[in-house]
């Protein structure tokens, strides 16, 4: 589904059609290990699931794949196995693109060694056409005039839909405005991350510290469902 002219939602990723560029975000590799270290003994499925889900969009060769921040959940003490998994994901991405760029997220404190090893590029932000792609945990210092759309992640947007005796949370894309620019917020690609409920929770990104009533919601499940404006959803739930 098109979220905006020449930008398509492909599962949890965005596809910039004219430039043949794929954007994925917030993989948070090693999330389970981090939970384990905190005493939550969740068994590990993440890597297997993530690869499976990525394969849905890795059905062609892209010119460029951008990971829009937080490829890993945390650095610091990480096990051999976690290293291997991260490298495997980078290999997988490289296989399907001429080039891979890692946009720095707030969790990506030491990307250097990984990037060097795999020859991928690291950037604070990337400009493709008139789109500015950045993680979104802080505001861009200056936005070039010809940029029309800012694509951020970081927020892990999701929406909780209720009916009596039942409540379900769905990942979603958000589309709205930031000042004069279009703003698109991407969900997390990590299968374990349920996302923050945009109806309930406080927004984290400085781009989203504003009234979100006119933001449009696109829920991703088996396909993409356009839910319309947030204020409308608020009224019915």
């Amino acid at each position, binding site marked *: 589904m098109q979220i905006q002219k020449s930008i398509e939602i492909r599962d949890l990723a965005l596809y910039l059609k004219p430039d043949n560029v794929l954007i994925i975000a917030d993989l948070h590799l090693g999330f389970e290990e981090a*939970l*384990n270290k*905190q*005493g*939550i*003994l*969740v*068994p*590990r*499925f993440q890597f297997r699931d993530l690869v499976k889900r990525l394969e849905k969009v890795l059905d062609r060769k892209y010119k460029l794949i951008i990971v829009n921040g937080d490829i890993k959940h945390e650095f610091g003490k990480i096990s051999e196995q976690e290293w291997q998994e991260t490298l495997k994901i980078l290999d997988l991405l490289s296989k399907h693109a001429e080039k891979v760029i890692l946009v720095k997220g707030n969790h990506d404190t030491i990307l250097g060694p990984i990037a060097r090893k795999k020859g991928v590029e690291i950037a604070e932000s990337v400009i493709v056409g008139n789109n500015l792609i950045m993680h979104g945990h802080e505001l861009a210092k200056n936005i070039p005039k010809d940029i029309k759309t800012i694509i951020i992640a970081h927020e892990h947007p999701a929406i909780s839909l209720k*009916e*009596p*005796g*039942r*409540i*379900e949370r769905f990942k979603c894309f958000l589309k709205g405005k930031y000042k004069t620019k279009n703003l698109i917020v991407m969900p997390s690609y990590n299968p*374990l991350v*349920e996302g923050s409920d945009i109806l309930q929770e406080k927004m984290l990104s400085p781009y989203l510290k504003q009234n979100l009533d006119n933001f449009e919601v696109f829920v991703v499940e088996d396909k993409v469902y356009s839910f319309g404006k947030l204020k409308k959803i608020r009224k019915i739930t």
Partner: protein
Amino acid sequence: MLNYKNKPNTAEQINKILHPVVKKWFYSKFKEFSLPQLYGVMEIHSRNNILVSAPTGSTKTLTSFLSILNELIDSSEKGILEDKIYCVYISPLKALSNDISVNLIEPLKEMEEIAGRKFGIRVAVRTGDTTAAEKSKMLKKPPHIFITTPETLGIILSTIKFKDHLKNVDWCIVDEIHALAENKRGVHLSLSLERLNTLSAHMARVGLSATVAPLDEIAKFLVGYENGKIRDCKIVDVQFLKQMDLKVISPIPDLINTTYEEMHMAMYELMNKLIQQHKTTLIFTNTRSATERVVDHLKERFPENYSENAEKSEISGTLSKARGIGAHHGSLSKSFRHRIENRLREGKLKVIVSSTSLELGIDIGYIDLVILLGSPKSVARGLQRIGRSGHQLHDTTKGRIIVLDRDDLVENAVLLKNAIEKKIDNVHIPTNCLDVLAQQIFGIAISNKIHIDDLLRLIKQSYCYHRLERKDFMDIIDYLSGKFISLEDRYIYAKIWHDEETGMIGRKGRLARVLYMTNIGTIPDESYVTVKVGEQIIGKIDEGFLEKLKRGNVFVLGGEKYEFQFSRGMVAQVKSSVQRPPTIPSWYSEMLPLSFDLAMDIGRFRRLMEEKLSKAHKKEEVLDFINHYVYVDTNAANAIYNFMKEQCDYAEIPHDKKIIIENYNDGGTKYVIFHTLFGRRVNDCLSRAIAYVISRLQHINVEIGITDNGFYLSSAKNIQAEKALKMLKVDKLDMLLSMAIEKSEVLKRRFRHCAARALMILRNYKGKIRRVGRQQVSSMILMNAVKRIDPNFSILKEARREVLEDLMDIKNTKYIIEQIQQKKIKVKKITTNVPTPFAFNLVLQGYTDMLRMDNKIEFLRKMHEMVTAKIALKK
């Protein structure tokens, strides 16, 4: 074998076994032995297992300590007192010190004074608050009487060094056993008792219980099984020892044609009158918010009679002029509650208002009247509350239940009848709880290696696990030894090792012990926020409530008003001395469910009423019957008559053998009201099952509203309710309800609790304590993950069991469905455009979030007028 002791021992028999010092002390304090003493002292002396059930204040605790002190003093005098624990005393109450002081320390001191020397008998309390220094003192010189809580007992049973002191225990006393048996704390304890039993095989078990039923099951819970047979236990039933003066009263003669204001005024006038007629009154409300409200209103309406800080108490004549008033509930800080309790004991309080926190044991001093505001929902609980008055053994207990609507009136009238006729509702004792089992097996494995067959034998000795399936047991062993995880990751999850060849299990990992000690327990973390004025802690409110608070909002806590300032982390800062009216907190759902047995008895009363009314008896005859059957006054009898008559004239009366399905249409929304008076726990099951069938059948979603008296389903479309009810089958109900709750909030929450108990979520790990909010988020991830391993993963299975068996009541739901299928319960369908009188409260339930209390009564009156008009038209 269980054995009721029907004849008490004689005073002479007991005198004979008492040491002269003990005897002298006893008669210096009391004129004669109480019934629990006449029944109990000899048995405890003879080291027999015994369950003593008697009302509060009937000297149960002293009974047990009397026998044991007698033994210890005798040994001391003979110079054969050993350095070992003779008696383990377990109480569910954390604030034990007062009770122990009254029933043990003081008597011991006085006996030493009489003897003119010290006996060298050591008593020690060990709870979660005990310091390391105190612990090490206990380790060096074990106390003769060891006082503890179920949780701490679980810990010390896994403490290698201290365990040695538990190798020759003579008695284990379980106090307030009725309060433990009905939840997972008790399940946990039942296994700890078996663990203790393996160390001290000859230990006698003494259970002390307030009014409870069935006593046989509580006795079995206390003693457990040996070689497949229940261990011997004597049962002493002196539950109805005290004289009772009980009444149901209504503040006004007509409960329906009254405005909210009038009702409200009359209720407080009545309460004030009752309080002023007595020396000290204890009021039970069912919720913490109501507790606050009552304190607030009493102070406001009668400032000359009640004041929070009235410290002076002048004595004039027999009645004290104390004016003190105080609130007491679980959200108040420990020190605040302590202050209130002390003022109560010192006679400085005229009235104390409590939610449920004063139901249990602690000695609360002189109370001569208990008022219940709203139904206690079970006979046992009603008796327990009312029993807090007349604390002296031979005093009469005096209780007044104030009712505010007609459903409440009927419910309490029958409750009172059962109380007077000694018919107590049965408690539900949870069984086969896999989360608690995991915790205990872990506890056993870290203290010693054990063969799994021996382990299973040990576990099956507990009443709560007597019917445990070997498969469920093995699933827990697999879970604990990490077998559910692929080999390379197993080291992270395995808490114990299990050698399949030898069948042995044991401790794994250096952290195991710390992990166990810091995460043990069965009471789930609730998300409470501490309320502070500056640095002073006032109390706690739940997280949900905090979210609703905005800066400047005024709320009531501990009977005082506070203005909310801001919150940081888990602390809410407030300002005191506020003049503006409060926004009363809406607390965490605290509604007590109506007991099934009582519900059925109310149904029976309705049925008898229908018979009387339909046979066209004269009004006087029917009133006579009501008066006779439920012991109420004329006002109340009239109100019951009118209520039933209206329902009967307008439609018909649903009862224990007739369910009425009322289709009611308010113009837009269609309601289907099920008149199923089976209590909320059964109605929760029934309504969810039916709603689930409808969602499958018609592909529509329905809204559910549940009360004790029934439930309603509503939808914009027509609902095929009757068909759905007919499709419920007993043998499919487990599966159906499991599916119905699969996506529910309640299952998610209960899974978090179970995962924490099974140590899958460590609340306390490497020195860090995890907030509940975080726990909940991670538990969702965990739940999804274990589902993928096995949809019936043991801990998930336990969460479902807990929801369906403990929180709801699937067992009795099956019974009801069976009765429907066998046509023993009839199902009738009616259609109305104004709901029947019995449906008022049910329909209102759906509006409660939107309507304020006064509007609610307005609505009720309007409905009532419409019904009476319709009845008039029919005639």
